[in-house]
Structure formats: C-alpha cells, structure tokens
C-alpha cells in the first residue's frame, strides 16, 4: 500500500500546481525509497531511463530549426493565403481531412505527422485561414485558441486510434510480447483487426465536434460586425 505514495505525490503535486518536472522527480525518488531501493541506485535508474528514452525528443528537436526558418519566411502567412483560395474549406473540414489522413497513414505504419512537424506549421494555420476567410476579419482570440487546440486534438486522436490497426506497430508488438511473457499465444492479426470499430468511433466523434465548431464559426460570421469589433 505504501508503495502507492508516488501516485499520491503526483496527484497532490498537480492539485497545488507545483512544477511538473519536480513532481515527477519527487514521486520517483519517494517511490523508490519506500520500496527499499538505495538512493544512489534510484538516481542511476533516473539516468538509465532518461538515456534509453532520448528518442522521444528526436522529432521535436530535429525539426525546430527547419520550422523556425520557414516561419521567418512566411510559412503561416502562406498557409492562410492558400487555404483562403480553396472553395468550401472550413476550419472543421481542414482538420477532419487531416484526421482522416493521419488515421489511415498511421494504420499503414507511417508516422507522417506530429505537433512540431505538421500541426503548428501546416494544419493549424490552414484551419485558421479557413476560419478567417469565413469571418472576413481577424479571428477573436478565443476562437483562435479553440482552433489551435482542436488541431492538436485531431493530431493526437488520429495517431492514437490509427496506429494500433497496423500489425507491426509498437503497441501491438508490446501486447504480443506481454502475452508471451504470461505464457499465452495471441495472434497479432486479431489484435489489429478488432481495433477498427473504436478507430471508426474516434473519427465519428471528432467529426461531430468539428462540425459543431464550424457551425459556431458560421454563426459568428453572421453576427453584425459592431458586436465583434472589440475583439479584433
């Protein structure tokens, strides 16, 4: 029971809004200590796990200089300009299209997206551009934030719920490996296949939420301009 103290540390840390890095570190050290692991061994574990998980920073760090250059040379401005020319493009449809591409490609084992690689430079500005065209004026701050967070949301939804319908993906291999370690033999194809209904649900739920976003933008566009002047 006392071993759960780390979870308690995490919950309290978030409630009191302590720095997240500090909370995670303290939770790890405290859990290790109550389990009777010597302090130096805990720190060595920190170093070991930190090093083996360095790959997690690869996508973000290696693409930032590129995105930085492109942003300086008008990537966002051009995305907005381009999407304004596409007829019928709405913020919701732009993001739903991305969600579809992301889920399908993830299902094929291809990782073509990412927040730093595609969402910030391409998806969000395109969706913002479509909304700006609809409103015909600069976006209110709240709507802009909503579109950006939705763009981040479709990226996560598409990747998570697409990825597991490909048999060679990490999660499927992890599940297979886990069952082997328990002395059970479970086929990879059925694990991949039965993920499909939930993936479809994830797409439909996102479609429903994005359609409501588009309706909100349409309503906003119909409002007389004096009510929205203050936000520009």
């Amino acid at each position: 029971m006392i071993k759960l103290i780390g979870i308690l540390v995490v919950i309290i840390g978030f409630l009191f809004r302590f720095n997240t890095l500090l909370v995670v570190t303290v939770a790890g050290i405290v859990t290790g200590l109550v389990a009777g692991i010597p302090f130096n061994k805990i720190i060595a574990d920190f170093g070991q796990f930190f090093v083996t998980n360095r790959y997690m920073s690869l996508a973000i760090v290696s693409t930032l200089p590129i995105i930085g250059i492109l942003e300086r040379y008008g990537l966002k401005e051009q995305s907005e300009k381009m999407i304004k020319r596409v007829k019928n493009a709405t913020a919701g449809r732009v993001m739903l299209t991305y969600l579809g591409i992301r889920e399908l490609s993830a299902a094929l084992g291809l990782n073509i997206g990412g927040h730093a690689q595609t969402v910030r430079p391409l998806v969000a500005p395109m969706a913002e551009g479509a909304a700006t065209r609809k409103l015909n004026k600069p976006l209110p701050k709240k709507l802009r934030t909503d579109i950006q967070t939705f763009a981040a949301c479709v990226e996560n939804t598409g990747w998570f719920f697409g990825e597991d319908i490909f048999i060679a993906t990490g999660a499927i291999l992890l599940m297979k490996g886990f069952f082997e370690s328990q002395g059970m033999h479970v086929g990879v194809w059925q694990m991949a296949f039965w993920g499909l209904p939930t993936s479809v649900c994830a797409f439909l739920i996102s479609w429903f939420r994005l359609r409501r976003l588009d309706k909100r933008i349409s309503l906003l566009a119909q409002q007389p301009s004096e009510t929205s002047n203050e936000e520009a």
Partner: protein
Amino acid sequence: MHFIFGMEFLYYLIGIIVLIIAAEVLFDKDHPKRFTSGLFWLIFGVTFIIGDKVPASVIGYLVLVMVALTALGQVKNGGKESSTKEQRVKMADKLNNKIFIPALMIPVFTVIGTLLYGHIKFGSVNFVDPTQITLISLGIAAILAFFGAMWITKAKWSVPVQEGSRLLQSVGWAVILPQLLATLGGIFNAAGVGKVVSGIVSNYLPTSNSFVAVFAYCFGMMLFTMIMGNAFAAFAVITAGIGIPFIVHMHAGNPGIMAALGMFAGYSGTLMTPMAANFNIVPAMLFGLEDQNAVVKKQIPTGLAIFVADTLLMYFLVYHF
C-alpha cells in the same frame, strides 16, 4: 548486425543542435536568465552526446540539476519575435507555395525512408539500423528538409540558430518531461506499484459480473494511464492484474480483443491527462497558449466519448468472438 546509420548519429546531431542553442542563450545579453537557462540547455545537449558513455548515475545527477533549475524558476524563455507580420507577408508573397516544399519534405522523406532504407544493403552491411528504421528515416528527412529550407529561403546561417532557439525556448523545460515520465514508469515498475494497484481493484469490485470485469479493466487502463501519462506502462500492470484473471480466466473472454480495446481505453486516458506531456502540454506551449492545459481540456469530451464507446464495444465483442 552492421549498419552505417544508427540512432547514435542522430543523438550526436540533436546534441549539437541543443549545444548551439545553449551557446546562443549564454551569449544573449538581453536574456533574463542567460546563465541558468543556458546551463539547462547545456546539460540537456550533453546528455545526448555522452549519454551512454558515462555511468548512469552521472546522467541521473545531471537530470536532477535540470529539474532543480526548473523548479527554482531559473529556466526562462528569452526568445523574441525576430520578424514582423509585414516582413513575413512580404516573404510569403515572394516565395509563394515554394515555402511548403521543405515542410512537406519531412513527412514525405520519412515515409520513403521507412519503406526504402530497410532494403538497402552493401554486402552484409545495412544502410540503417533495421530495428530503428522509422526514427532514423525521420532524422534523415529532417536533415534533407533543413538543407531544402536553407536553399529555398537563401537564409543566412544565423537564421536557423535564432529561430531554432526561439522555438526550443518556447517549449522550454517541457521538452524533457516525456523522458522523465518514462523514467517514473520504470521506477514504479521496479518498485512493484502495479501489483499493489491490481490487488486493490480485485479485492473491492464485484468482478464476478462480466460487465463489471470489462468496466474495471477499461476504467483501470484509463485511470492508470492518466496517472502515469503512458498507456504502455499501464497495460502490463492492469492486464496482468485485472484483464487476464477476470475477463480471460473467469469469464472466458478473448484476450486479443481485450488487449486491443484495453489499449484504446488507455489512449482515451492519454487524451485527458497533463502527464502525457509530449502530446498535451508540448503543443500548448508550441502555440504559446496561456493555459498549458488548454489541449487537455479540449480533449476531455472526445476522450470520454471514446472511452464509453470502447468499453461498450469490448463488452459486446470480447465474450462473443
């Protein structure tokens, strides 16, 4: 197994990028916390370069220094907007759609690399490490896209340094959170936290009902994923503790369906937790949002709806196929 490109090479590359940014911060006289912030980035860069060449405890103590610097508020974003909207609009009019080429080079070359590199061999020597093809493809795609961007924009070499520094500093300390969370998962595992959690769930719930068994498993996956920030870490713990004894053994459910949908229940939890930092906190920081939890909040309705659909699907599928 012999190969030319492995992860090692990419770690050096990232280490060098971060060290250049650290230098940029250290020499930035207008930076509010140039020495301590610079030290943070210096250590982070160093972990990529010497990570597996020094004892793990050395890295462990370096990580503690990074955490301490952050917790004491010594890591600040000194990056500033280096161009105006007017300048960028002018550039966009000049380059037009050519600006998209380098951005698209990243996903396109990652895909091509993933499909191609595994087949390139020189005798018995592989072109890339066959166990890490996707990550290495991404790294190589980033290098190609970098030169593509430099060529198309004709930017000076100072531009990627300044702009990379601006963006990395806007992500800030959150960049090491994913690695630190993986560390927490490892330590929880070593300490045997999972067994305790499973014991509690199985003692206090009427799992003899087949729906309760499914619900307890899915809910456990979601909740534990939210606490740990990682569905993979939750999977072994909750599947061994709840899934196999109750769904598979007691009610003869299909383990493959259980695992597939159980992992998705975990992912619905990933959508709803700040602990899944690289998915939920990093994008909020990338967008420069005031509320670092804005993405988590936006995802709660989606996460809950998917959780409900997923639990019902598991109940109807796992005992029938």
